[in-house]
């Protein structure tokens, strides 16, 4: 996943700079629990105590715990956790948005950009669609398994199918038009 690869070196450097907090082995491990609220509280405590580099490990663990305790309220819990993490400087605001939307929104963060489709998406349509497929699996976890929001998941699934079709047609039209100029 893109945010993890870009954030990891920064967080590693930051962790070295503030070395001293939670350096003993196992100090950053979260207590084993099946209760989602307790897991979130534990993650907050650990992150505030110098374990920022473990953010993505905690996120994975929180997602797993939330699967055992599913319900619509989980969307709100993850949103609050991500906003809190951004406020604490563990991740950026943009990363928080990207993570939330990747798991809990119908729209795909993989299909985004500031330029038009002809000059951006159509230059690498296969890669974009592969990223969207991967994101759909995360949405399955976030929307279907954790939030129990089947309607939203099926809309995301349909959006992927429609995007595939529309992008194929649009990119072909873009190619023909640019070739005829």
């Amino acid at each position: 996943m893109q945010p993890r690869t870009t954030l990891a070196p920064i967080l590693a450097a930051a962790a070295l700079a503030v070395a001293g907090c939670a350096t003993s082995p196992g100090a950053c491990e979260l207590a084993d629990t099946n209760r989602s609220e307790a897991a979130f509280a534990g993650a907050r405590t650990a992150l505030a105590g110098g374990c920022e580099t473990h953010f993505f490990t905690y996120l994975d663990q929180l997602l797993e715990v939330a699967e055992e305790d599913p319900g619509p309220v989980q969307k709100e819990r993850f949103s609050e956790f991500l906003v809190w993490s951004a406020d604490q400087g563990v991740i950026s605001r943009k990363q928080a948005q990207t993570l939330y939307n990747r798991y809990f929104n119908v729209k795909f963060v993989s299909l985004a950009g500031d330029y038009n489709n002809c000059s951006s998406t159509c230059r690498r349509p296969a890669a974009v669609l592969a990223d969207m497929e991967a994101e759909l699996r995360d949405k399955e976890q976030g929307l279907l398994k954790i939030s129990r929001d089947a309607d939203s998941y099926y809309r995301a699934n349909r959006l992927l199918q429609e995007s595939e079709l529309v992008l194929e047609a649009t990119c072909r039209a873009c190619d023909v038009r640019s070739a005829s100029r």
Partner: protein
Amino acid sequence: MSLEQRLSSELGRGMTPWQLQETLLGKTATGKATEPKLRGRSGLRLSQRFRQYYSLVANSGGPSSPAMAVIASDIYLDMAEASVLIAQTREEIARATLMEELNQSFGTITPEMQSVVDGVKTILFGEGVALPAVADAPAAGESGEFVSELAW
């Protein structure tokens, strides 16, 4: 303006990827009310396809609604594939027409004419008569009673 131009200008150059998603989802659409059929899964009758095409043409606003964008793409891709098949069919018709014209120019080839052609080919290219798959029957003279060379 052609469908291709509209797809290129409105969806291709006129929207970012995020806006495209918003168009497909629709700001107020529930997802079920505007559910279009997808290529390959629809099994649409030709009349249904043309009904969609009529809706697309009748909609002067272009492919701005979620269903219209998908239908426009579906029709465009279908048309591109259909164009290839139409071109192939035209080529076949042209080939069959040419063969018929040749037949009419040279008339029907009779077995006698074919036999003459085969003979000429044998002379020119040395083509032999194909060997029969099963052995011929022995000649009549050779099938008589044995006669020893010692006999008087």
